[in-house]
């Protein structure tokens, strides 16, 4: 793997979750930028220019789905993984634009797997 780390933006209104994701994903070798809301994410997006966005759906203010649409308007090449406690959004047309959908679980294995797959797909041959 090259020296360059993937930069991931984690968007979740819950601080504990943000912290957990940050710790866990940094352990996986990603550099993490956290945002507490959709607005914050959109605001930080040009500056951070993340390789991937992991975002909750149910958030105060702009919802994850709306934020996803806006992100794609800014740069449709940025992959977004939606991560929610609701399983029923999984096949929902509102989330079609996302690159992956992960149901929140105590174990983060599924999320990590999804991140790996999306990155591999988006930047083939470039990853670790």
């Amino acid at each position, binding site marked *: 793997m090259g020296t360059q780390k993937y930069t991931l933006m984690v968007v979740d209104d*819950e601080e504990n979750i943000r912290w*957990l994701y940050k710790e866990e994903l940094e352990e996986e070798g990603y550099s993490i930028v956290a945002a507490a809301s959709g607005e914050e994410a959109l605001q930080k997006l040009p500056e951070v220019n993340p390789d991937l966005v992991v975002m909750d759906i149910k958030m105060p203010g702009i919802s994850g789905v709306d934020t996803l649409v806006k992100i794609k308007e800014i740069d449709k090449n940025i992959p977004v993984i939606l991560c929610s*406690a609701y399983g*029923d959004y*999984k096949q929902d047309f509102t989330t079609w634009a996302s690159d992956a959908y992960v149901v929140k*679980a*105590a174990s983060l294995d599924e999320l990590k797997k999804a991140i790996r797959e999306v990155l591999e797909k988006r930047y083939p041959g470039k990853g670790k």
Partner: protein
Amino acid sequence: MDCRQKYDILTKIVEISSSTSQINDRLTQAAHFLCVKDLAPTIAFYLLQRRGRRLTLRIAADSAGSLQLPAPPYSYKLPIPDDPVCKPLTTLLPNPLDPETINANDLFRKPQPHGWSLPLADENQAYGAMVLLSSTPFNIDNDTILFLLVVCRQITLALRSSILKNRDQQKVRRLKFLHQIGAQLNASENVQSAFSKLPDSALTFFSDSASILHIFASDQSQEKLIEQGFCDAEQHELVLQVSRYQATRTKFISHPLVIEKHNSPPAAIIYQHFFNQFCAHIILPLISQGRLVGAIEFFLTDKPRSRDLLPLEKEDLELLEILAVHLAATLERTRAQNQLSAANQASLLRTQQLTFSHQIKNALLAADTPEKIIRLTLGALVSNEGFTSSPALYLEFQEKDDSWQGLYYASASNRALTNPDQQPESNHLNTLTDHLLEANSQIPQKLSEELKALWLPSLNTAPSRFQQAVVGRKPTIIPAEFVTVIHAKLKSLLPGPKIVVIPILSQDHLKGLMLANADYISREDLAYITLFTDAAALALDNTKLYQRLQSSLASLNSAQLRLSQSEKLMALGEMASSIAHEIKNPLVSIAGFARRLHKRIPDQSREKAYSQIITKEIERLEEIVNNVLSFSRPESNKFEPHDLNLLIDETTALFARELKKLKISLEVQLTSEMAAVECDGNQLKQVLINLFNNSIQAMSSTANGNEHRISVRTSCFCDLKRQEERALIEIEDNGKGIQEQFIHDIFNPFFTTKHDGTGLGLPICHRIILNHLGDIRIHNREGKGVMVSISLPFDHKAPPKPTV
């Protein structure tokens, strides 16, 4: 002969005339007396026969002892004087003793006898002659002749009075006889007994002549010959022939007919033979309402048994005619009585039957199961009021494979066997029902086995007569060979030559067949049987309706219950789901950090163990939350072809360690012919995991000493109902099973028997399998284990949207 002598003779004759009433005695005395008085060596009296025109030697006296008389009847022809005036008989004959007229050789040993004949006659009638005979010629002067004529006159008088007396006596006898007959006829109950008295009476009527009596009553083809003593086989035959001959000619006679030799049909040879032995054939027609209903025949023999035989006169015939009218009336009366009593009996029987059928109908209406109805009908069929002693059996149509199975057998003797003391006629409904049920409840072992063996795959191969009877849907009598050929057992169960086939219908569908021996069943009875079967069909419909009503009421009740429950559940589900979501976020944090904590704590420290517990418990908590969520908001299905065997292998692999730990053996039989099943693999796996978990828990909570075992099998089968090929998964354990009382609740959400269960495991499985258009069934053996079978279609086309 002097005056004194003449006086003596006359006095004696008068004395004799008044002394005794018997003609023979008088004549004997007179002959002897005259003999003694030396009138002639031999004196004989000839009397005119009854019906013939002959003189017959009746009495003779012989002083010289030279006379050898032939035995009576000895007769010679005598021209009857047309002139009624009294004349000496000599004047009527060419010669006082004309050898042409009287063959003296017949009378005497010595030829050429000599004698005088004097008439015994009055102004009206000739009775006979007194003959003076001698072997040597002798002369009698005119005075003596005149005197002898006076004597003859006196004897004639005595003769006449005697005859008249006899005739009176006979008339009295005959009248008495008629009276007796009339009384007997009135008293007798039937023709047979009335006629049985006739011969004795007839003998009285004809007083002395031998009579043979022949009676026939035309309409009852009752022909009877009543003989009185004198009839040998030859005579018998003769009598019958004459009777038959005459019967053809006297069909329409209305009055008594007397056939004697002189008026017999000249062409009839049979009569010529007849009159060699008989003297008369008397036919009395019995006429009632202008119709010849019979006849009585008398055959009178020609052998007079008494000297006092008197000719049959017109009056006698009239008497006989009265008798005939009497007899005809009796015949008619008894016949009418017979008909009336027969009609009475028939109507009584019908009334009984109707009453009985009414009772049966009531009993049938009270019966609540089809089985009871069939057995009641069968019992009624063989009961006394039904058709005694005809055994009957019932074949039931088996819808599942179109076959016929012998179910019940009943016979009257069977009932008598089980219940010898009880009176068959019982008006009490309960006892009647019990009684009829008893007729087929205790059939002998052998019969019941034969009945069980009575299984017909179909009636298609049965004779067409039998099939017609079945299709006709009405009780039909057909010869037994058309029925018994269907199955060998039928022959021994129904041994009679005729069998009635009674289709039992319920809602226009053939439910079964009753077969009974129909030897005693008339066509009229078929209508009566129809009463039973119609009532049975009605009762069957009623029970069906009733059962359906009950079951629909029950299902309505349970549906209502479920509806209200599911409303509650829905509300509960909504709430649970929103709570679960709220829980989930903190749970993710807790789980994440707990795991991180766990990683950082050094091994073999107490803290490591604590955090281990926290992690485990959080996993359980998450599972609960996920169950709640997936039940209230099920995930959409992702159908792809999956190898079921592979799914099972993956699932069992998950449990391998746990099973080993709990010493549960696993038995897996996977069919190699399993094609790919279009399904959501994850969901199916979830189902399998759930079921495995249940089984393991059911077994780990029991310690019955047996080896615990889980068997997993897969197979393919053809679902006939849906007409498609299906995959089948069976998971069987030998754990404690499910308590029967819970079996209906196990698919209800939030129902659980485990202290730490969510009550969502099986409901989720159920929903998943339903979404796959499959079937999940629990075969519970309480205390012995559970087998769960899941059937799935291979093709999954347009699954219905999962309902919330």
